[in-house]
């Protein structure tokens, strides 16, 4: 499940944190490897030590025992401040400096690293663009920004010195759900371009599934229950705790991760306009439906009820109704299922732009889950 040591950017080896005066450790002999360019999400109930684990990576919290290696260097052998300047850090409350402008906030780490003005300014402009803020924001103060904008400034500030590793502690926790979802999409988009190695902490399993290349589910006391790519975890939870934490709609969540692109599409009860009425009868029987659709090459022309065949001499002369249940191939199987269950049609037509690709039925989708 865990990739070989060589390409692990961050490696935790039997890391334990025991606070003085406590009986049980906050994190217990935790070992994890995070490959370069991946997002690992630490998720679990409160008291599972996820934030403690995160903060041990940049030594905001010192481990009691064990070893943490970042980019081949043991963190305990590095100067704390030097280490932190090389790791991007984003916290839930963002923690922007209210007395500094957005540009000054973003320039924080470059300034600590002693970059010259020209280079810093260039970088600020670049980052404002990268996180999709308006250039006018440059000289505003944090109090003048919305929650979503502040969050993006927080990310820009963490990215300023282009660190290979980013630590994010509930980075989307302080914004409302609608903005959060948009920021998550934007964040994934960004990650596809930047390929950082990211450790992200959340208490929200849906966020973990959406963002993580790998998800580590921690139990109270810092015990690692399972560490796996989310779709593997959803298919095969390691134990009852993981299954319970993933929730009862595990199958649906997994569908949300499976792209239609990878699914086997069905032909569906579809005939060409040149087909004989008997062909239409045959496909209706085959799929057990009382309607059929007509497609010409990559164009789906529409559908008609089977009764239309009784009066019409051929398929071409049958008046067709537009096929309304349709979905883009870039969507997930969950969205396809939603399209099916929220319409009367038993199948959704899959399109790539205007090109018709095939059909997906609820039955077909449920078979995709178990594959």
């Amino acid at each position, binding site marked *: 499940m865990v990739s070989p040591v060589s390409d692990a950017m961050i490696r935790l080896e039997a890391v334990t944190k025991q606070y003085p005066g406590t009986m049980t450790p906050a994190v217990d002999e935790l070992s994890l490897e995070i490959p370069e360019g991946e997002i690992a999400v630490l998720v679990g109930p409160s008291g599972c030590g996820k934030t403690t684990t995160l903060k041990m990576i*940049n030594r*905001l919290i010192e481990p009691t025992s064990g070893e943490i290696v970042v980019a081949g260097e043991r963190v305990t052998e590095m100067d704390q*401040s*030097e*280490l*932190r*300047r*090389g790791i991007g*850090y984003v*916290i839930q*409350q*963002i*923690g*922007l*400096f*209210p*007395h*500094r402008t957005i540009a000054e906030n973003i320039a*924080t*780490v470059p300034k*600590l690293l002693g970059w010259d003005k020209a280079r810093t300014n260039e970088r600020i402009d670049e980052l404002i663009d990268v996180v999709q803020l308006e250039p006018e924001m440059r000289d505003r*103060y*944090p*109090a003048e920004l919305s929650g979503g904008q502040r969050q993006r400034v927080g990310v820009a*500030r*963490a990215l300023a010195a282009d660190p290979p590793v980013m*630590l994010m502690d509930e980075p989307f926790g302080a914004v409302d759900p609608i903005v959060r979802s948009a920021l998550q999409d934007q964040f994934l988009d960004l990650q596809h371009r930047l390929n950082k190695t990211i450790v992200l902490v959340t208490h929200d399993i849906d966020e973990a599934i959406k963002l993580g290349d790998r998800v580590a589910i921690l139990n109270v006391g810092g015990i690692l229950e399972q560490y796996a790519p989310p779709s593997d975890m959803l298919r095969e939870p390691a134990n009852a705790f993981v299954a319970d934490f993933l929730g009862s709609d595990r199958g649906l969540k997994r569908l949300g991760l499976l792209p239609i692109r990878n699914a086997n599409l069905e032909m569906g009860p579809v005939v060409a306009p040149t087909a004989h009425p008997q062909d239409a009868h045959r496909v209706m029987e085959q799929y057990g439906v009382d309607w059929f659709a007509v497609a010409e090459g990559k164009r789906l022309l529409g559908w008609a009820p089977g009764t239309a065949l009784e009066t019409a001499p051929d398929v071409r002369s049958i008046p067709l109704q537009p096929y309304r249940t349709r979905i883009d191939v870039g969507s997930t199987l969950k969205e396809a299922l939603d399209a099916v269950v929220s319409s009367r049609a038993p199948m959704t037509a899959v399109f790539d732009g205007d090109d018709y690709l095939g059909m997906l039925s609820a039955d077909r989708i449920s078979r995709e889950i178990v594959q």
Partner: protein
Amino acid sequence: MAEFLTDLLAWFGDNWSGSTGYITRTWEHLWVSGWAVLAAMGVAMPLASWLGHARRGGILAISVVNVGRALPSFGIVALSLPVTIRIARNVPFIDSGLGFLPTFVALFALALPPIFTNTYTGVRNVSPEAVEAARGMGFRGTGILWKVELPLASPVILAGIRTSSVQVVATATLGALVAYGGLGRYIIDGFALRDNVTIFAGALLVAALSVLTEVAFSIAERWLVPRPLRNVGTQQRPEAAASVAR
């Protein structure tokens, strides 16, 4: 009444120059006040900001205020007199234990508590998120104090210095009791001579100087406090002071 006002105006016309004139007296008044506030800042601010940064010594901070409130300035002047006289005898470059030194000691003690508490609470109450973010990005302890905590605490610290300064300017009047100059001279000497015009003129000058001090600080705030932090909570104060000054 009209006669009193005429006399008062005449007093202001006659007494502005010379070593006992009110320009000199005002200067003396500000001289001892300024040194007392500066000394209090020099002692209180480093200690209080360090304690606030380390998030320690809350009990000390509270004790300092309470003791400061409990000690009457008049008492400190009287108490410090024997001490300052002894110091003056033993330290070659201090010529007198009277005058400046006991006044300074009393005003210093008066100035200390507001500066100490405001610096302490100002630094301590800086948003923990900003401090955590700073630490997480690789600021060292002193960097956090200078670049994050002190700028963010600056409105509160400045308010403390302002409170101290206004109190000190108003109280420096007591210097006249221990043979110091300052505007208190007119009040004390006026009492001795039963000269109501001089008493009133002295009182007026002290009041005006206190108000001007307040105004000066509201102007200084514009220079010293980062823009987005200005006028937080104290928005009404400068206006009120300005209208009195007019």
